[in-house]
């Protein structure tokens, strides 16, 4: 299982690099899908098959399909590839790469320091603490936010529908 873990981790890293340096949008998306499936296998290897399956179903199976769908409708073509290639020049990626390196350095130093590293707030918030706070004292606010999202969905569907006269046109074709 350790072999599966390291191999799929390697695949995930290589595929994600492919997403960043790729110039063809659809190929980049394919790389991202491969990367997500590799992460799912990492979950399997770690003994969390449920999370792995959900990763494939939700991310690879639903969200990425929408991405691919939109990119295909845009029908990018050769021009977009050229533009991407221009954006990958050294002076474009040097600054973001340097910033990312600083973050990587910070991460490594923190990992090396171990648990002993003193947090600024004095204690670490766990996922459970976040959950109990959200669904305990702040339950009403969470529900209100959910209603806001629902209202947004209804608005989007209202804005996106066909005007009344065009709808009648379509009915006429029945």
């Amino acid at each position, binding site marked *: 299982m350790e072999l599966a873990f390291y191999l799929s981790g390697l695949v995930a890293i290589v595929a994600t690099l492919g997403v960043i340096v790729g110039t063809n949008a659809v*190929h980049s998306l394919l790389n991202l899908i491969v990367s997500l499936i590799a992460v799912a296998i990492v979950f399997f290897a770690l003994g969390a098959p449920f999370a792995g399956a959900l990763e494939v179903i939700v991310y*690879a199976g639903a969200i990425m399909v929408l991405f*691919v769908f939109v990119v*295909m409708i845009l029908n990018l073509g050769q021009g977009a590839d050229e533009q991407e290639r221009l954006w990958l020049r050294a002076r474009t990626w040097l600054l973001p790469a340097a910033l990312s390196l600083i973050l990587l350095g910070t991460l490594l130093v923190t990992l090396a320091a171990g648990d002993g590293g003193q947090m600024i707030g004095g204690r670490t918030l766990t996922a459970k603490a976040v959950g109990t706070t959200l669904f305990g004292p702040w339950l009403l606010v969470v529900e209100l936010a959910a209603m806001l999202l629902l209202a947004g969905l209804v608005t989007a569907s209202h804005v996106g529908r066909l005007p009344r006269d065009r709808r009648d046109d379509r009915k006429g074709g029945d």
Partner: protein
Amino acid sequence: MSWLTPQVIDILYAMFQAIVILLGAVLLGAVMTVVERRLLGLWQDRYGPNRVGPFGSLQLIADMIKIFFKEDWIPPFADRKLFMLAPMIAMASLLLSFMIIPITPGWGIADLNIGLLFFFAMAGINVYAVLFGGWASGNKYALLGAMRASAQTLSYEVFMGLALMGVVGLAGSFNMREIVQAQEGLWFIVPQFFGFCTFLIAGIAVTHRHPFDQPEAEQELADGYHIEFSSMKFGMFFIGEYVGMVLVSALIVTLFFGGWQGPWLPPFVWFALKTGFFLMLFVLLRASLPRPRYDRVMSFGWRVCLPLTLINLLVTGVVILLDTPG
């Protein structure tokens, strides 16, 4: 023979099972292409292919020879990598799903705890075959077919999952073997009748079989996403569709009709008979129903099937809660 320990024998036996089930699934898919045409002929008052061999039984071999020897052509305007990848995904993702189906108490490849979720994951991956195939062809009919297919599959996968959650709730497990064992006294078709109806519809839509084959509608799209594919690449899409049909039939049998269970006959015969019945049903649907308009298919999915599955899930939940002691 010191290396032939019980452990090694177990592994070899599991590999043997896996290979037999793999070959069985592919062969059954291939045979269905001919059986379907004969049955369509029967139901439409004509003969169907009956020239090659006795009663047309060698038609399959003739078709295979024809498909193998056709020119394997990749259009110059196609995206080569994705063009080659698409048929592989089409066939592999569906074949992998056979892994979770328990055929008899002793036969079956993987006894996964997340069994049913594995099928959903593979069905999700299968969408890419059509999407990439349509896009990589560089052909507008293929692209239109791919658009239709992906929108249709996404919509129907939503309630395909929800339709099966009633079964999962009643069995208390995602494990296919446990689902079959939970149907000991009563097949799930009775308490989950609406779940069965919606899953059947979703299963037909996800494998884009008639009457949900708008992605490939000949008269509008000239065959949709696989229009540019020839030879074995087309063959893989073609067999993939029938493998999907076999898969959905086997899943319906496992989830709603008690899998291998039944009186008198051995378990394998029961499983084969039930699966065969649903394969015939798929063909009968194609023989008898006209193809609805594409927007009708979409609104039927969202306005009828989705609310139905939600109500079914709600009622199932209430019943399970009332049944639970304490």
